[in-house]
């Protein structure tokens, strides 16, 4: 029996006697701040087919006092019959979208919590593009990132139905695979999730080699923890598809992916009888989330680079939590009944 993802973190806490105090507090903060964001964006004029979507800690339901407003304007720009792409939008249409982006930016992009400067957030995103352009040259790094964040950790704050429609289109695109079979994980989706994780890791090293060491310690800490939770939160439900038939795959993944990633991880630990490793992995992640909410920790990380990080007690503490999170996930993958499926599908 596969545990439902919804509420699994609380069930794991009860089974394992772990408090997960920081994660549960962050969920409450997320819920409260989402109410606030919905109120603040309610008056923003949007095209009918555009949604304001939050990514990152908002999608993971792990908002802390310092979480950025990583938003995009997601446009469900389906082409008319016969159109192959979305690039034929009229000038008027482009202006409408640009005005909406500007208006959202005036609400969510003006204080210290404005989106980062990587050009990934704070802009319009074409739903058509992220659905249609999977693989090959047109699937840029930015496109891949938006698609993965949409399907794995996104949260709408305006025009939820538009977000849901795009989310379902991505999921259906992954599952519209002729090779989909009973009791087999969907390969197309699996490969894209794994590709995304490896892309993040390679890009992290690439940025450093190009001299982009800004905020190295914080970005490294997040790569080791929240990025890993994002990846595992996609990988595990996909691997667990070996339990379901072809006709059940979509409903199963829709239920799992609708829950925050930590619920998905908790559900996998419960499903596979690995309560103790699950409690430890998520306790380690809980401590990390708590540290991220500490101004002194943020200041320390801001002052670290790759050379001096290992001498920092704060950075080493985060590395310890990251290692414990990873060891718990590895035990789940390699020392439970999931092992044959990891071996069969996880490498090649």
């Amino acid at each position, binding site marked *: 029996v596969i545990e439902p993802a919804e509420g699994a973190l609380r069930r794991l806490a009860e089974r*394992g*006697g*772990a408090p997960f105090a920081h994660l549960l507090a962050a969920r409450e903060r997320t819920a409260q701040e989402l109410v606030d964001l919905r109120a603040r964006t309610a008056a923003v004029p949007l095209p009918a087919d555009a949604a304001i979507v939050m990514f990152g800690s908002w999608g993971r339901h792990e908002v802390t006092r310092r979480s950025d407003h990583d938003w995009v304007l997601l446009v469900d720009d389906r082409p008319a019959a016969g159109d192959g792409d979305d690039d034929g939008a009229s000038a008027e249409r482009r202006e409408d979208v640009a005005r909406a982006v500007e208006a959202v930016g005036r609400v969510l992009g003006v204080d210290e919590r404005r989106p980062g400067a990587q050009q990934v957030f704070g802009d319009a995103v074409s739903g058509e593009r992220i659905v249609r352009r999977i693989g090959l040259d047109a699937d840029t790094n930015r496109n891949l990132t938006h698609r993965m964040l949409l399907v794995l950790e996104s949260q709408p704050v305006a025009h939820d139905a538009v977000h849901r429609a795009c989310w379902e289109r991505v999921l259906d695109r992954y599952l519209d695979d002729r090779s989909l079979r009973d009791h087999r994980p969907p390969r197309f989706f699996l490969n894209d999730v794994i590709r995304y994780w490896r892309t993040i890791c390679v890009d992290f090293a690439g940025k450093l080699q190009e001299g982009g060491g800004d905020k190295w310690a914080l970005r490294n800490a997040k790569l080791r923890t929240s990025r890993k939770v994002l990846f595992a939160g996609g990988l595990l439900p996909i691997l667990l598809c070996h339990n379901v038939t072809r006709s059940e795959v979509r409903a199963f993944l829709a239920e799992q992916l609708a829950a925050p990633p930590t619920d998905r991880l908790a559900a996998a630990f419960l499903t596979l*009888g*690995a*309560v*103790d*490793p699950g*409690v*430890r*992995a998520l*306790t380690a992640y809980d*401590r990390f989330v708590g540290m991220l909410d500490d101004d002194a920790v943020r200041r320390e990380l801001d002052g670290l680079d790759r050379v001096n990080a*290992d*001498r*920092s*007690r704060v*950075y*080493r*503490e985060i590395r*310890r939590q990251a*290692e*414990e999170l990873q*060891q*718990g996930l*590895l*035990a789940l993958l390699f*020392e*439970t*009944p999931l*092992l*044959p499926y990891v071996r069969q599908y996880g490498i090649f």
Partner: protein
Amino acid sequence: MVPPAVLVADIHSVAQHHPLGASTGASPALRGDWPALVRDALRTSTFAVELAALSEPELPGLIDFLASEPALPFHFVSVHAPSKGRAMPEDELVDRLAALPPSVDAIVVHPDQMLEPARYARLGSRLAIENMDARKAVGTTADDLEPFFDACPEAVFCFDVAHAWSVDPEMDEAERLLDRYAWRLRHVHVSSLDEDGHHRPLDDEQEGLFRPLLMRCRDVPWILEAPLR
């Protein structure tokens, strides 16, 4: 067809565990020669190690060794604080342990050596409190350990499976220890015990007896307090 769960349980032996590591305390002939002790530990594993200053006079040498920033390949490094030959005032000992470099992931302390447990709280989550064997007056059971964790709320747990066996050969107390402190568990000490309570290589019978407990600890480093046979 054999269910996958049975296959996984059957293939898991202590020797196959990951991450596995050695305690330098298992190499008494090299005592005090920390570079040689590390080289010896590397023969067991490059992933984890416990640097054991079991006797207090060994601690200054270990501190000097770590201060020299040796290039250790291990992903997990613990230091076993002195449990014998204690002469240093407790505050001074805690000062020295707190000053261990950030690369040390855990500092294992025996509760029977903690005269005022609250003094150790500043070791934070690097403090690993170990359950004691039946010869000790305190720290042998889950209930015994409670006041130590109350005094040091961030502390983690070092589960010594052989110590737990000495307290209760049926292993019910071991289950209670894991039930209570599983979420705090950071590493495991693995061995058998001889009649005098000294660590000796894990034998087949006890490996079988310990397996259900060890399977609950499959994600944490297992430190061999005596080499595998």
